[in-house]
């Protein structure tokens, strides 16, 4: 009886899931696989991959996402490490400094960034890719710091002591103990940064990068009343993300050992 009651607690989320996740997904799949007359077709799919421009956009989005994620990781890991391991007096204040930007609306932050970059670069339009990466990094950095910080904080210190007792120096301890154990944090950080940076076209718009990325491309299809083509691109993106998820999930499992799991850890 008690167990049944507990299951009832899932009901609100279940309803939410069906109404706002599952149902729209079904609609997207329906539109993606039909043409204007409602008949089944794969034309939308072939159309997307046959055009070097649309595949180019896929690659461009991918490039932005990869570079942004790498930059975020390179910036975030040392910070998270110092915050978690260091013996700072006002740790929470420092952490707050990194988290605080998230309290301000992101369009507002990007507007401010735009002005700062204009002062530095002069004319923003000469470095669209760079500006986009800077903007996205600025935007998503806290999402990378937080999970890594939490993993490092929870790390069992006796393991580090054991490593040093067994004669490993600090560098070796880091690469053979700390880094592998923090992989779950890294993976969830990558997830939080990589996926939105493939589609967050507002950053591009605001920083004067007029090239489409996946998000804006989908928007363009819908504005041109081509719901079928737009849905197909959304679906392609979904599949890519799914493959990516499965891959990294397995990878993280292997690295961190079963049980510790990635974000979708079983």
């Amino acid at each position, binding site marked *: 009886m008690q167990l049944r009651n507990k299951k009832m607690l899932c009901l609100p989320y279940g309803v939410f899931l069906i109404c706002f996740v599952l149902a729209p997904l079904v609609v997207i799949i329906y539109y993606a696989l039909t043409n204007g007359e409602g008949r089944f077709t794969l034309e939308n799919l072939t159309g997307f991959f046959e*055009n*070097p*421009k*649309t*595949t*180019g*956009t896929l*690659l*461009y989005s991918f*490039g932005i996402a990869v570079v942004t994620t790498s930059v975020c990781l390179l910036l975030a890991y040392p910070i998270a490490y110092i915050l978690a391991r260091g013996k700072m007096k006002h740790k929470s204040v420092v952490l707050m400094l990194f988290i605080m930007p998230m309290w301000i609306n992101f369009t507002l932050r990007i507007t401010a960034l735009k002005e700062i970059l*204009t002062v530095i670069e002069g*004319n*923003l*339009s*000469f470095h669209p890719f760079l500006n986009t990466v800077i903007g996205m990094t600025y935007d998503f950095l806290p999402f990378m710091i937080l999970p890594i910080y939490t993993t490092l904080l929870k790390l069992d210190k006796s393991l580090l002591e054991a490593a040093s007792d067994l004669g490993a120096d600090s560098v070796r301890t880091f690469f053979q103990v700390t880094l592998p154990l923090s992989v779950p944090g890294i993976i969830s950080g990558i997830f939080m940064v990589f996926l939105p940076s493939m589609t967050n076209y507002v950053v591009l718009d*605001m920083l*004067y*990068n*007029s*090239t*489409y990325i996946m998000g*804006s*491309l989908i928007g*363009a*299809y*819908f*504005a*041109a*009343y*081509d719901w079928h083509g737009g849905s197909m691109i959304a679906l392609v993106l979904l599949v890519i993300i799914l493959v990516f998820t499965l891959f990294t999930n397995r990878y993280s499992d*292997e690295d961190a050992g079963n049980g510790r799991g990635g974000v979708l850890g079983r």
Partner: protein
Amino acid sequence: MKLRRRTHKRLQAAFLAFALCLTGSGAGAGTVFAKSQDEIVLRVCNWEEYMDMGGWDEEERIVLDNGVTIFGEKPLYEDFEDWYFETYGMRVRVEYSSFGTNEDLYNQLNLGDTYDLVCPSEYMIMKLMAEDRLEPYSETFYDKNNERNYYINNVSPFINQVMNENEINGEQWGKYAAGYMWGITGVLYNPEKVSQDEASSWKIFENERFRRQVALKDNVRDSYFAALGILKADMLTDEAFQNAPDYAKRLEEEMNDISQTTIDAAQELLERLMDNIYSLETDSGKADMVSGKIVADYQWSGDAVYAMDQADEDDFELRFSVPKEGANLWFDGWVMLKDGIHKSTDSARQKHAAEAFVNFMSRPDNAVRNMYYIGYTSSIAGTKDNDTVFSYIDWCYGAEDDTADTVAYPLGYFFSGVSEDEDYIIAAPPEQVDRQLFAQYPSEDTLKRTVVMHYFDEAASKAINKMWINVRCFDIADVPMAAWLAMLAVFLLLVHKIYAKVSVKNVTVQ
């Protein structure tokens, strides 16, 4: 110069909307309660920020030379509810909502949203007309003897002519649409950096002297229009072409050229322009002109006025010019939807209320309220007996009485249909001639080289949208060699790593 216009309006509107949200819930409950048998609901969908929402400060009260006072207390559609009850003794409640782009509106209609009255742009009106979704205005709407028919009695003869000359499937636009706001496109420019001559051609967007300092519009119709202007510049500026008796007709054909070869040429040109422009923008161009980030911008006349006003406040000068190749004449108009009107319980009353709404919006004092709030130019001109609109223009742009140096700016073509009508000449300060006044009411000569851009049929629309997506997308051929190599390296590394792991596992298993 007189201080005027709606600098704080937008903020106020946002605040008001917020306040309305707060009070809305309470009011909503009240109306349900008070809803009587004879109240009808008129569903109106308009552009965002495209109607006076009232809430003016006391110092904004405008007293015109003809004695009329303009003041917005409540949103105009609420004033309409009161007016309708007072005039016709029937209750109507306006359900007012807004849309962001013509395409959004069209998508909303296809998704099953029902409206009685909407206000799209001319090409969307044409599309809806061609799809037989519009309800024609009734005969009585055009009866000039009825003084409550504010629209037909006050509409500008210029606008009326455009509406009646253009046809879709043999039917005049004027039967289905009532003009609301109108304007043209042109080039907003910084006279310190750009000469008037340079700004008088669409070619400014391919001028390498202004590389990465000019901005085009982030929508396919405007950018395609500019591309056509550049592609056909030689022909369009040829004197023989311009002086031909059928110039207007030929210009319209040329600027609506949707043959595949032209579309391909436009794609090639726009791809080249993408390298020369600062960005494609919809809204940021105004601020970037004022802050000096860019020196020229493809601009709609109403937004150009707004940007020039903003720049004036910073003691910075911007000007507006209309390219000599030709420019786009656009307007937004009220149209009734068959879906809305005929699906209501009493379609005759519904239609009456919708037509009354259009008439109320067209009453000159209300037209001025809207112009003040929105900053665009109303299609309403007024009459000699009721010259509120003209008085307002004079109040905005006319020189002070003691100014010696003025230029006569004739607006007869718009107000009475007689070009040199002496009643409609504004004595303007000379600098207004290529600035706000000109942008808001272009001279008659300028309008001769403006054309309406038609809607594209499905095939052409597909081709043009595809062209636009190609222009906007990243060409895979542009990926630098280094990036390909880096990707290859990462890929090989991953393969190696996985392979190493698998072999380690195999060893342990053994």
